[in-house]
């Protein structure tokens, strides 16, 4: 029941949410996370952000993450949509949805999916600044820590 997509077009969150629960009466809650392009990076104004991925491997990684979340949190459905190409401040980058009979599984599944998506799915961001310069975004250690907390819980 996982919906996995990499796309250049905008993400219609309402439509994706409706698709998850359409025709079903067994879902109790759907948790979601939407990531947006911020207008500044380390205080510097951004003109645009360009996202690149590894066609084939990226979708495989996303499917693997969705399957792991579905098993672990007994999700009834999940959706992972990630945009690529040139995006501007305020635009949606990513959508994660997790559906479950009760809210805690949906909330935990959603947090798990976005943590892993940020640390394990092959996407790379380049920021173009208002001053004409551009730079690839460095991986953040806090993201690896956020994802690793799930592993330690799994072992415990």
């Amino acid at each position, binding site marked *: 029941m996982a919906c996995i997509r990499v796309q250049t077009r905008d993400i219609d969150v309402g439509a994706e949410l409706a698709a998850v629960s359409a025709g079903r009466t067994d879902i109790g809650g759907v948790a979601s996370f939407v990531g947006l392009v911020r207008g500044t990076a380390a205080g510097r104004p951004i003109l645009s952000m360009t996202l690149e991925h590894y066609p084939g*491997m990226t979708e495989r990684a996303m499917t693997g993450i969705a399957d792991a979340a579905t098993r672990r949190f007994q999700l009834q459905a999940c959706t992972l949509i990630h945009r690529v190409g040139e995006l501007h401040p305020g635009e949606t980058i990513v959508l994660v949805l997790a559906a479950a009979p009760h809210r805690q599984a949906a909330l935990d599944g959603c947090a798990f999916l976005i943590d892993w998506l940020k*640390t394990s799915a092959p*996407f790379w961001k380049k920021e173009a600044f208002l001053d004409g310069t551009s730079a690839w975004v460095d*991986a953040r250690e806090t993201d690896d820590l956020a994802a690793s907390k799930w592993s330690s819980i799994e072992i415990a």
Partner: protein
Amino acid sequence: MKILYFAWLRERVGTGEEDVTLPDGISTLAGLIAWLRTRSPGHEAAFAAGKLVRAAVNQDFATPDAHVANGDEVAFFPPVTGG
């Protein structure tokens, strides 16, 4: 074998994809990297980043001791920054 480069590795190498024939005697990812570095100053600049280079063999994340052979698809890229 097909070699892919992403993000700043692609920019430094100067191409996103190249087809190479693995020289005799090279059978690991580490060996492949050592050989690729000799192909151009751009390759050298890309792989000089050392610990910041990640790799995948046939679309699975791979470590330097991973086995590689002609026919494989090998990709190099920085740590991921999506989401």
